[in-house]
């Protein structure tokens, strides 16, 4: 029995790991029933894998049996792999016992599609319901909604789960029809719209009535696979932007495509595009926390993110005319746009300058990365950058290769690879 559960766990954790979402934050479920767990506020990463990703939730598939045959997926019907399926009680028992030992924040349950979407979804919901009602479990639950599942089941899922998500996976309809012939955009976007409406409706009801059952309070998220199909970064961030604006998503995750098969429809890569994925996350942050618009970062003439430098620096180099920015007088929004100044430093700058005039040394102590920032800012005459006189290429080269240039090991490694390849 123990060996069987061990085997199941290894198969079904392994098959679930390509879903990069791991967030456990934003829940509002308090432990008010003297039960187990508390999911209010900040998420917690309980461990980290050797690839440096956070382990916050017990992330497993209910089963890796699947009637679909999506080319990029290890669990696709035509792949000759060991199959396994948990029972409802096994998942409940694992979740409770992992949680009690402080291994995890909760459960992230997804599944291959067996029999029918509704049949699969019904099982996922049953597990969440059992945890909440029979075990008084207040930890975090993230359920994947199965494409094609009925609206009633999604509504019910939202009552027990803190977060719901539907993965778009492929950033364009064309790629979807080629690589995942059984899926279509409508089936993905419909439940996304239903969840959005459920959340909005729930908020409105909450404003009117005292006791309204919570509905997916941590919102919904999705994932896009990067590099399995030919979309440009511009297409991807436009899609992201529309998801944040149109569907009110909390997060869009990007997953660098990891080669799983030699299927002729897929690109023949041996390395996942990790830098590209990293640059997309940086762009995502710029749009969510730094006030950047998608079309400021990329446009049809520049449809791809620069792999060598981060998107904020790239924007600044293209827009040298707005610099230098004076840290002693500029608006917070402009200070946020200086390369090398993060959100925290920007806040500290506007707070500290009420007390004293800032100079380069204070900026360094506040956490500003002067190596990049010094080209783009001024401190009321104490420091005059020569940004106007240098060309884009000169600044770029000095930042990348000048003295004190420290590039991330990842970038160095992958740039070396490109150098070898070309």
């Amino acid at each position: 029995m123990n060996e069987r559960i061990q085997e199941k766990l290894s198969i079904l954790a392994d098959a679930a790991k390509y879903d990069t979402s791991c967030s456990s934050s934003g829940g509002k479920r308090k432990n008010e029933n003297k039960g187990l767990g508390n999911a209010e506020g900040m998420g917690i990463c309980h461990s980290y894998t050797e690839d440096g990703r956070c382990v916050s939730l017990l992330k497993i598939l209910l089963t890796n049996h699947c009637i679909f045959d999506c080319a990029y997926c290890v669990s696709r019907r035509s792949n000759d792999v060991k199959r396994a399926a948990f029972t409802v009680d096994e998942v409940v028992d694992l979740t409770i016992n992992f949680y009690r030992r402080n291994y995890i924040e909760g459960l992230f349950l997804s599944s291959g599609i067996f029999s029918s979407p509704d049949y699969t979804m019904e099982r996922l919901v049953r597990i969440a319901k059992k945890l909440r009602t029979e075990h008084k479990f207040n930890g975090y639950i993230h359920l994947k909604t199965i494409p094609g599942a009925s609206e009633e089941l999604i509504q019910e899922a939202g009552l027990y789960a803190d977060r719901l998500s539907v993965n778009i996976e492929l950033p364009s309809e064309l790629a979807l029809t080629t690589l995942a012939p059984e899926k279509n955009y409508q089936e993905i976007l419909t439940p996304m719209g239903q969840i959005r409406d459920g959340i909005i409706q729930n908020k409105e009801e909450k404003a009117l009535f005292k006791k309204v059952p919570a509905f997916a309070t941590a919102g919904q998220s999705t994932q896009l696979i990067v590099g399995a199909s030919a979309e440009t970064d511009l297409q991807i961030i436009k899609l992201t932007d529309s998801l944040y604006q149109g569907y009110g998503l909390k997060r869009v995750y990007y997953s660098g495509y990891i080669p799983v098969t030699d299927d002729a429809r897929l690109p023949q890569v041996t390395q996942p595009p990790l830098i590209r994925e990293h640059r997309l996350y940086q762009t995502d942050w710029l749009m969510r926390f730094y006030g950047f618009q998608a079309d400021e970062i990329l446009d049809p003439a520049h449809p791809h993110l620069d792999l060598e430098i981060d998107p904020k620096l790239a924007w600044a180099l293209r827009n040298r005319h707005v610099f230098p920015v004076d840290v002693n007088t500029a608006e917070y929004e402009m200070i946020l746009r200086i390369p090398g100044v993060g959100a925290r430093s920007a806040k500290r700058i506007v707070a500290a300058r009420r007390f004293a005039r800032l100079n380069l040394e204070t900026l360094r102590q506040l956490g500003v990365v002067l190596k990049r920032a010094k080209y783009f800012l001024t401190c009321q005459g104490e420091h005059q950058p020569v940004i106007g006189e240098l060309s884009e290429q000169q600044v770029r080269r000095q930042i990348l290769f000048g003295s004190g240039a420290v590039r991330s090991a990842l970038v160095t490694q992958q740039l070396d690879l490109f150098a070898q390849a070309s």
Partner: protein
Amino acid sequence: MLPLKPIRRPTSVLASAAPRRPGAPALTAPPRDYTYDGTFEGLLTVLFTIYDWRAAPSSIQPEASAQVGLFAQPAHRETDEALAARVWDGLLKSMDSEARTRLYHVFLSEDADRELLIFRYVNLALRSAQDVAENYANADVRRVQRLAQQMFREKHRMEAFVRFEKTQDELFHATIEPDMDVLPLIAVHFTKRYADQRWLIYDRRRHYGLYYDLTRTDVVQFEAAAGRKTTDVSATVFDEREPLFKLLWQVYFDHVNIPERKNLKLHRRHMPLRYWKYLSEKQPREVRFEPIQNKQPVVGKEVSAGQKALE
């Protein structure tokens, strides 16, 4: 031009500084060395004394570890709970409660300079007409922020890295050795979270623990039995399913890893080596890890038709 997206602006920029009542007696008497009993209340008592005697501190040290010059006469203050409470309440006249909490966190950080740093911060706040909390141009303000931030990180790490083991009598037991004295700060978190199980978290470096008995959480100390590690639970008293869940957790940990993305540097940055000692997933494996073979390697295969078409 699209409308600008809302940015979460820092609230402090918009809020005007609260009215201050600056002022504190000038410290005109010759500076002195102070000692106290090592508790936070003791330190607050010393703060009171400094202004009472108008003698700035040249040092403030816990009595047990006090090192003073040969001829120095350290002034030892007995902790006075009532005075300490007065000082604690009084701090709110010159700082908000967040800043006051930061000072407590600085104390728990066990930083070598913590007592004098707290004094200098309080003194600055007392004499300043403005709220000093965000005066990042001041080195002491930055240092307090920095220590409080490190404290927060250590607290958060302990909330993450505590690993309970279940014993036969249904106690969930964990041992930690944090860099800073975090137990007072994590008590609320664990009490809320594990309301339906008895648990004990023991700080082996500081020789005390937190114990929750299903109704309340208390600080507990153990009488040191001659040289024995007093809270080590021997394997015989574990719940019979304890080894199974430890094993399953290790199996899980090994299988969620994606070898193609291996990045040990990042791994260690998030989970520094010094914490591994008590992490179940970082203990030697009893069963060897066998990767699941679910991919058909692309390397070495003939270039596909799709690839050819592109060239």
